């Protein structure tokens, strides 16, 4: 997991433009019996990779080192399992940024908490980007968080990162644990007057 400010992510891209990919598909529940996130390495998309017999993007050699994932709409809907981003972080070159049309509501905060940059783009941009990557799998991209651009030598794609989340990547405040800990005295004081104390 990265530490501190994240202003850019550089790496090759894996195109996986499928819609409504739920977290059960990213990591089927039977693998959640592992009690460490380290053990998630290698489980990402296990079942569909088996079904697709080597044709799944995550099994194609040209994407083996990819660090940026391009996905479709509603990526990561469903279960709250943080095992899903952890599986992605430990697959291919280690996924460090995702560009999708939209995300599941618990999945994307789980990504932010692990320093994975979550960006959105419209469908056309995503399709164009995927088509380019399929033709040029070794193209190296840089996702510039501040400028909200995904660039490679020959071109640039506009992406979007939620304003507050963007700021938190840039100043390092995406990791909220320390900030929450600073205020535990205030929390403790407030709890004395909160349910089930009436």
């Amino acid at each position, binding site marked *: 997991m990265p530490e501190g400010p994240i202003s850019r992510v550089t790496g090759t891209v894996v195109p996986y433009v499928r*819609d*409504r990919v*739920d977290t*059960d*598909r990213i990591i*089927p*529940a*039977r693998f*959640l*019996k*592992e*009690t*460490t*996130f380290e053990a998630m390495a290698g489980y990402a998309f296990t*079942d*569909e990779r088996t079904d697709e017999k080597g044709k799944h993007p995550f099994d194609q050699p040209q994407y083996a080192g990819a660090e940026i994932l391009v996905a479709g*709409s*509603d990526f990561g*809907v*469903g*279960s*709250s*399992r*943080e095992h899903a981003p952890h599986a992605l972080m430990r697959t291919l070159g280690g996924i460090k940024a995702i560009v999708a049309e*939209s995300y*599941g*509501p*618990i999945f994307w*905060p*789980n990504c932010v*908490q*692990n320093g994975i940059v979550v960006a959105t783009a419209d*469908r056309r941009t995503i399709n164009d980007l995927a088509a380019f990557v399929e033709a040029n799998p070794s193209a190296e991209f840089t996702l510039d968080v501040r400028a909200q651009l995904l660039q490679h030598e020959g071109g640039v794609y506009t992406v979007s990162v939620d304003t*507050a*989340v963007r*700021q*938190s990547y840039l*100043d390092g*405040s*995406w990791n*909220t*644990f320390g*900030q*929450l*800990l600073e*205020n*535990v005295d*205030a*929390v*403790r004081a*407030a*709890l004395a007057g*909160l*349910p*089930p104390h*009436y």
Partner: protein
Amino acid sequence: MSEGTLLDKVWERHRIGTLKNGQDQLAIDLHLIHEVTSPQAFAMLRERRLHVLAPDRTVATVDHIVPTVHPSLRPYLDNAAEKMMQALEQGVREFGIKFYSLDSGKQGIVHVIGPELGLTQPGMTIACGDSHTSTHGAFGSVAFGIGTTELAHVLATQSLAQSRPGVRRIEWNGELGPGVYAKDVILATIGELGINGGKGFAYEFAGTAIDGLGMEGRMTICNMTIEGGAKVGYVNPDQTTFDYVRGREFAPTGDQLGRALRYWKSVRSEPDAKYDDVRQFDSSRLAPQVTWGTNPGQVISIDDLIPRPEDFPDSQRAGVTKALAYIGLKGGERIVGTPIDWAFIGACTNSRISDLREAASFVAQGKYHVAKSVTALVVPGSQQVKAQAEMEGLDTIFKEAGFQWRDSGCSMCLGMNPDQVGEYQRCAASSNRNFEGRQGRNSRGHLMSPVMVAAAAVTGQITDARELM
């Protein structure tokens, strides 16, 4: 932004301040944990040498991995499940957390035991490392699922960094017809608004149909809010809520109860509250709902035809084609008559006593028996639900009709314990997710109400239960 809603009031009451990243620090009143998403959080605390800030506000149980046949027989044959169980047992011991173990008599699915024990109360903030935590919103609490890192945040700080959602009011007006239940209301809602239609919203459920439901029906509705893309779903607390909570083990008593009631009434949405969106639906003509695809929004009325890819806009056709291929059905045909292999009554959506009573009474009134081709499971949501059902003789009704009467747990909802649907087999299920592989590799699940599951079990096929009543 909304103003004067329950969400606004409960949020403001629990807001500690604004964090550097712009989010609110929200105090969490009640934290529920289970075996699957907690071991890594305990490890995070150990790594940072932190303790649990308010151990009295975290309650643990075990539900996802427990077998529903001889659950107490240890060590488990599944070594990974045994290790996971031990990780929870070790964690609750080490950090001083109350644990409803299998021998407590009060173990069960985390979203069943919270309300049952009276831990869940109106106006609370409730978090749990499980997306169906929205269930507790039925009591007028703000309850949502969190990831494991956030779970560590709650353990160590009893608070979370959160952004306040907008509020969409969803009204269902009109009396529900016979054979139509809360499950049908929420499936139809998701069908109408989409699986990510609730993005950025909390859902406030209201209207005469919701007012008329008991607490367990309201829990079914709030349970599946997340399937519509909203992390939080709630119903404003009323007399039905107060009557349900009062007298339970952890419910306030005496002077506390008086003060609690005042607070509970004060958090209700104001009559002139402002919403970010309002949607209204007519429940008087609602038919039983059943899913045909691989997400809960792919749902139709039981008497409708399965949609064809060409019924959808261009951008969705490939997805619909894929869903139909996975589920093994053809567009344009009736879903009624689709043969099933498994029937599952259970899960945090529909495993409470009223669910079991309705299903048992359906079976008993027709003197039905489970079809030969079907394996049917009834899995009570908790040990207390099981005991209550047995006191009422519901177990006898089920067993004599050929259903298996199991011990409590998440069971066949998620393919994580021995109860799994075989490859390419079809299951009529009262649970909340029909995702690819959800109930086991290449399993085919159809979501519906418990009575509809019972009807499918006894006929061996997807059936309109109303015709058998």
